[in-house]
C-alpha cells in the first residue's frame, strides 16, 4: 500500500482551539475533552494537537519533534543535525502505552540553535535556515520526519482518535496559553503518523477541515519558492502558503486572508474606498495562484496568537465563542460548550472573514 505522500488522501475533520488572551497557562486536558465530544467527526485514522508556550525553559531554541522508523534512522538524522545545530537538550518524548494507540514510531525531541557561522556563510536568517533543514530531512532522509519545528511550541500527533492521542502524549502534563487540535476522517488509511495533523513549520501550525479544490494550483505555485509538498495534503500546502506570505512576503494576517479567501470581484468592484479597493485588487492579482477554493475551515496557530478562517462560501462549519480571557473555536458549538458551558458571544464567522486572536503583548 502506498503511504501518504505517495498518494493524495482527501479527509473530513474536526478542528478546535482555545487561547488565553492574557497568556494564562492551561493544560491540554480541556482541548482533549473538546475533541472527544466531536468523536464522530474523526474515524480513528489521525489526531493531533499543538500547544504554545509549553517549553518556557527552552524558549529561545527550536524544538524539533521527530518521528523515526528505527534506531538507525535516528542515528543518521542526529549526525545530520549535529553538523548544523547546537543541540542543547534531546530526549525521547514520553508517552503512555494505551491499547488505542499502536505501532508508534520512535519519537524524539531536540532543542536546537543553528550555528551562527553557517547562517552567515549561507546568508540566511535562522528561520529560513531551519525551514530548509526541516524540508530537506522530510523530503530526502529515509525513516525520519520532523513534525514540529517552532520555538516554545510543540505539535503532538498520531494515528488514532484525537482524545486517545491526547492521553498517549500526556498532554495533561503540558501547560500552554494556546492549543489547537485536529481529528481526522481520511477516506483511506494514511499508513503512517506523519500524515496526521496539525501540520507545522517553524512556529506555524495549521489544522484544517475540508478538501480544497485549488490544491494543485496552490502547490505548483508555492513549490516555485523552495517548498516541497511531500505529504500531498491540503494542510501542508496551506501551511507553506501562510509561511510564504507571512514570513517571506511580510504580509499581515488580514491581508493573507484577503489572498487565500479573496473577496469576489464584484465585492471588490463595489468598494468605494479607492485605497482599499486597490489593495484588494493588487493582492488578488499578484497572488492569484494562492486563492484557495473549495471547502475549508482552518485554524493557524503561531507564537502569540491564532487565526481562524473559513473559505469564502463558508462550506465548512466553524464557530467562535468567548468566556473571560479565553477564546474558543471549534467545528461544532457543542465542542465548546462541553468544556465551557457558560460560553458567551458565540458566533459563526462569515466566509472569508478572518478571526484573529492575539495574546496580550509580552504575556506569552
Amino acid at each position, binding site marked *: 500500500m502506498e503511504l501518504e505522500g505517495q498518494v*493524495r488522501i482527501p479527509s473530513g475533520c474536526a478542528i478546535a482551539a482555545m487561547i488565553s488572551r492574557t497568556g494564562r497557562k492551561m493544560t491540554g486536558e480541556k482541548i482533549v475533552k473538546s475533541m472527544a465530544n466531536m468523536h464522530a467527526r474523526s474515524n480513528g485514522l489521525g489526531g493531533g494537537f499543538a500547544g504554545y508556550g509549553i517549553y518556557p525553559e527552552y524558549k529561545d531554541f527550536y524544538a524539533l519533534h521527530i518521528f523515526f522508523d528505527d534506531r538507525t534512522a535516528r542515528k543518521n538524522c542526529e549526525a545530520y543535525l549535529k553538523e548544523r545545530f547546537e543541540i542543547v537538550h534531546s530526549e525521547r518524548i514520553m508517552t503512555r502505552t494505551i491499547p488505542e494507540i499502536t505501532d508508534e514510531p520512535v519519537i524524539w525531541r531536540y532543542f536546537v540553535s543553528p550555528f551562527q557561522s553557517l547562517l552567515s556563510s549561507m546568508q540566511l536568517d535562522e528561520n529560513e535556515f531551519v525551514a530548509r533543514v526541516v524540508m530537506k530531512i522530510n523530503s530526502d532522509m529515509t525513516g525520519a520526519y520532523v513534525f514540529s519545528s517552532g520555538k516554545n511550541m510543540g505539535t503532538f500527533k498520531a494515528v488514532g482518535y484525537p482524545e486517545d492521542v491526547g492521553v498517549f502524549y500526556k498532554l495533561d502534563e503540558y501547560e500552554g496559553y494556546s492549543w489547537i487540535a485536529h481529528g481526522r476522517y481520511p477516506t483511506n488509511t494514511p499508513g503512517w503518523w506523519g500524515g496526521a495533523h496539525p501540520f507545522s513549520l517553524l512556529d506555524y501550525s495549521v489544522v484544517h477541515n475540508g478538501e480544497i479544490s485549488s490544491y494543485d494550483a496552490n502547490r505548483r505555485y508555492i513549490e516555485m519558492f523552495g517548498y516541497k509538498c511531500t505529504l500531498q495534503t491540503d494542510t501542508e500546502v496551506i501551511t507553506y502558503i501562510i509561511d510564504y506570505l507571512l514570513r517571506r512576503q511580510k504580509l499581515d494576517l488580514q491581508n493573507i486572508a484577503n489572498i487565500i479567501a479573496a473577496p469576489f470581484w464584484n465585492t471588490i468592484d463595489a468598494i468605494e474606498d479607492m485605497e482599499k479597493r486597490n489593495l484588494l485588487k493588487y493582492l488578488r492579482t499578484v497572488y492569484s495562484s494562492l486563492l484557495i477554493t473549495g471547502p475549508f475551515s482552518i485554524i493557524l496557530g503561531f507564537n502569540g496568537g491564532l487565526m481562524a478562517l473559513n473559505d469564502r462560501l463558508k462550506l465548512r462549519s466553524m464557530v467562535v465563542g468567548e468566556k473571560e480571557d479565553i477564546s474558543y473555536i471549534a467545528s461544532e458549538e457543542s465542542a465548546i460548550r462541553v468544556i465551557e458551558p457558560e460560553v458567551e458571544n458565540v458566533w459563526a464567522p462569515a466566509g472569508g472573514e478572518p478571526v484573529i486572536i492575539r495574546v496580550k503583548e509580552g504575556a506569552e
Partner: protein
Amino acid sequence: MSIEFINPEFEVVRDMTRCTNCGLCEKQCANGVHRFNSVTKKLESDETKCVNCQRCVAFCPTRAIKIVKNPCRISDNSNWPNDTVNEIIKQANSSGVLLSSMGNPKPNPVYWDKILINASQVTNPSIDPLREPMETRVFLGSKSSSIKYDENGNIITKLNPLLELSMPVMFSAMSYGSISYNAHAALAMAATDIGTMYNTGEGGLHEDFYKYGSNTIVQVASGRFGVHEAYLNAGAAIEIKMGQGAKPGIGGHLPGAKIVGDVSRTRMIPEGYDAISPAPHHDIYSIEDLRQLVYSLKEATDYKKPIIVKVAAVHNIAAIASGIARSGADIIAIDGYRGGTGAAPTRIRDNVGIPVELALAAVDQRLREEGIRNTVSLVAGGSIRNASDVVKAVALGADACYIATSALIAMGCHLCRSCQTGKCNWGIATQRPELTSRLDPQIGHTRLMNLLLSWNSEIKEMMGGMGINSIEALCGNRLMLRGIGLTEKELQILGISHAGE
C-alpha cells in the same frame, strides 16, 4: 482532359425533383460551380471548381443540393492515398509549392480528446453556478511578487500593466487583408461587448476601429505592416509575432489581389503589390535582439501596455519560452501546429511544429521549475475548439486561450480550407466587395457573442463540478485532469496521471 487532369474531390448532387431552377446557387458561388444552361433550361454543375464551402447547400431554398465526396478515386493504397497522388499531379503540372489554408487536417493525436476532467463527489461539494458566484475574470501580464512598501508602511498597490478579460478566451490574430473589414468589425464589437480582446494581426488597424482600442491587441510582425506610433498606442497590448503555429519558421504572403483600397492604406504599402513578411524579424536574430524590440515597444508606449510575444510551438519550446520570459515579455502566446492560417505551404502546415497541449505543459512546467512562472502569463492557441478545450488548457497551465478558427466558424466559415484563393463565399477571407458584403457585421457580432457566452456558461459548469469557483484556482491545477489512452511519456510531458490512478 489529359494527363494533367485531377479528379475532383467533391461531387455536386442536385435533386432535380426538388430543384426549382431559381438560380440562387449560381449567384452564391464565386467559384462558378453552378451554371444555368439556357438551352436545357436546367442548372448544371462544374464540380472541378467546387471547394465544398457549403454555401449553396445552406442557401438552396428547397434543400436540393448535396456536396459529397467523389467516390471516383484511385485504387485504395495506404502508402499512396488519393490526396498524395493528386498533390504530385498538381506539382508535376505547375512546379509550384503547394498552398493550403486553415489548420493541419491530418489524423494526428488531438490530446485534448485524450484528457478527462474531474468532478467533486462526496468529500467536497460541487458548486452550482446558477446559485453561487462563479468567477472567470482573468488578468494577463507580469505578476511579480516582490511587495514594496511606502514610507508609511503601506503596500504600494501599483500593478504592472495588465490585460483584464471577463473570461479566459480572446480572439487570435487575423489580419485585415487576410479577412475582411466586416469580419474585423464583428470581432472588435464582440470583444468589446464581452470584455475580452481581439487581435489586429499583422495588417495594421483600420482607422474605423481605433475606437475599440481598449479591447484590441495590436500586432507587430516581421513585415511591420501598418506599424506606427499611433497604432502602437491604440491597443490595450502589443503582440510581437515571432511565429505562427500553422507555419513555424516562415513569414506571410498576402497576394497583391487582396491589397486593395483600405487594405493597402492600412498596411501602408502600395495597391496590388504582394505583402510579404519575412521569415524572421530582420532585427531579431537572437534572444537578446528580442529584448531590444520588447523594450523599444515599451518605450514607445511609455511602459503602459503589456507586451505579448507569440511563438509557434516547436521542439525546444520550453527553453525558448524561458528565454522570452527573461526578455521583458509580459505574456507569452504559444501557437500549436493545428492553428489556422489564411495561406501556408501545405508541407509546412502539415509537418512542422508540435501540438499546443504538449508545448503548453512543457512551458508551464519549465517556467515553474525556474521560479518565474508568475512573471509572465501564458496564452494557448492553435485549435482550441470548445469550452472543454479551454478548461483543459487552463488546468494544464494557460492563463487564457486564443481562438480564431472557432470564431470564423461562428461567422459562417465552413472550413473548406481555400482562403488563399480569395474567393470566400462566406465573405470572410476575401476582399471582393460582392463577397464581403455577405457578412453582416452586426450578425457576425451577435454570433461571436453567442459563442463566447455559451462557452463561458460551459466553463462555469465544469468549474462548479470540480468545486472551483474562480478560474485562477484552475490555472495549472493538473490534478483536475487525467489522461486516457496515453503513454507514460505523454503523461509525463503533460504532467498528469492516467485515468484510474
